[in-house]
């Protein structure tokens, strides 16, 4: 055993490297996702993403139209900052202003559309057991985290959301100027009458929020403390990210608002125009 772990030669180094595989941690991707032991819909074969993201880290993935994404705050102090781009046309992306203005609602919850800048719905919130989310404060920046925690760089123990997003975006050939304002889940903010922004904190361990995607998307997730997190110490905990195929759910959407219905119409119209194959939709 000692010999195989030596790294003085290429053969030994290779053996040393290969011996590391199979290690299991509490924050890692499970590949293939179908190997995830507890698929939320009971059908392992439909799983397309199963990853646990540590506090202060990020993840990204391209997901098909009809994917349902579940974000779970495992230990009660995750904060999932989210950006969404249309995968087949990444210049179309999340627009937080339209996301709150069009539905006449500042707070994210069941049925809330996450709208693109092109009058289409990228995702709908289809489940929410937390109710503590934010579409107003965006994410953290280097100077802010440095002032608050002593460090905010990507390599630090308290990385700013903007640093994490910069790298996540770069992996999809998107630049910092491509980063629009973001949403965040699991740390609430309330607006007082005078406009004051007040943290309402976290809903506790185990809460989840589910998004259903109406178009193919690039999803960027940064799991780092909310800018108004009152905790002076960086204490962001693990985020569980699961996704599975659920295209049939596009036929039963949880929102009857006329603005939402028109957003869905616009989205279906654009998708139909951009695709030749007939979909397996009723």
């Amino acid at each position, binding site marked *: 055993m000692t010999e195989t772990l030596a790294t003085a030669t290429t053969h030994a180094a290779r053996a040393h490297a290969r011996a590391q595989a199979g290690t299991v941690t509490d924050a890692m991707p499970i590949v293939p996702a179908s190997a995830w032991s507890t698929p939320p819909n009971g059908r392992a074969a439909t799983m397309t993403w199963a990853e646990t993201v540590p506090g202060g880290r990020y993840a990204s993935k391209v997901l098909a139209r009809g994917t349902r994404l579940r974000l779970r705050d495992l230990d009660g102090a995750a904060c999932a900052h989210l950006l969404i781009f249309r995968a087949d046309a990444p210049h179309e992306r999340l627009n937080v202003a*339209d996301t709150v203005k069009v539905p006449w609602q500042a707070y994210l919850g069941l049925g809330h559309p996450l709208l693109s*800048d092109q009058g289409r719905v990228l995702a709908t919130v289809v489940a929410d057991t937390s109710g503590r989310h934010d579409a107003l404060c965006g994410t953290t920046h*280097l100077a802010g985290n440095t002032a608050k925690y002593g460090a905010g760089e990507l390599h630090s123990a308290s990385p700013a959301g903007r640093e994490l997003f910069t790298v996540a975006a770069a992996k999809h050939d998107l*630049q910092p100027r491509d980063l629009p304002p973001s949403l965040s889940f699991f740390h609430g903010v309330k607006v007082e009458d005078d406009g004051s922004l007040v943290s309402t904190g976290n809903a506790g361990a185990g809460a989840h929020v589910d998004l259903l995607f109406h178009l193919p998307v690039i999803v960027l997730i940064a799991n780092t403390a909310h800018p108004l997190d009152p905790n002076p110490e960086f204490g962001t905990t693990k985020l569980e990210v699961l996704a599975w195929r659920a295209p049939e759910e596009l036929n039963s959407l949880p929102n009857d608002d006329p603005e939402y219905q028109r957003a869905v119409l616009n989205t279906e119209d654009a998708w139909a125009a951009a695709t030749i194959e007939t979909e397996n939709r009723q």
Partner: protein
Amino acid sequence: MTLLAETADLALVPGRVVLDETVPLRAPWSAVVAAGDVLTIVDLHGNQAVDTLIYDAADHTRRYSAAATVTAQQNLFLGTGSVLRDADGEPLMTLVADEVGNHDTVGGACSQESNTLRYGHHTKHQHACVENFLIEGAKWGLGKRDLVSNINFFMNVPVEADGTLGIVDGLSAPGKRLAIRAERDVLVLVSNCPQINNPCNGFDPTPVRMIVTREE
């Protein structure tokens, strides 16, 4: 000379007038405002939303961030003393004088596309702020990816306790002004909002006046 004297009187912060332009109704506008100079915006006819984006004149990737701005002041509304920050939290401009208050940071710009959701597909070909931002931004090499949630000066967007928010009747009036001081050389990109389906312009878009003064 008389005109200049009048302009100087209209500026909220005294100084030598280096720019005085009227933005026609529905039109875009842009200018570089030098560090230390003050831009006074005059809501000539009252309740005219002035959609505004700000960029570092030397590096357009450093741009106004609604999130960084409202988070730093822990308040959603802009008023006297509000520092308009970039995404790294650094000041771009400061609202040094304001005769109205409660300027909006949330509503963003109207677009042809979002108008179809908000008011119906018959509004698709009406004028909209994003069109203005794109055509005016193109003069400076700015494109769609450079547009983010903008400031809406003179626009009133309250948020109710249950999260309901919306554009309601404005707090401004004919001749009301505000003044923003450049903390570095900045490019100010404006859409004099052409929206006709909500009260952000009192359902009647009108011109606004832009005056830049420099300390003497």
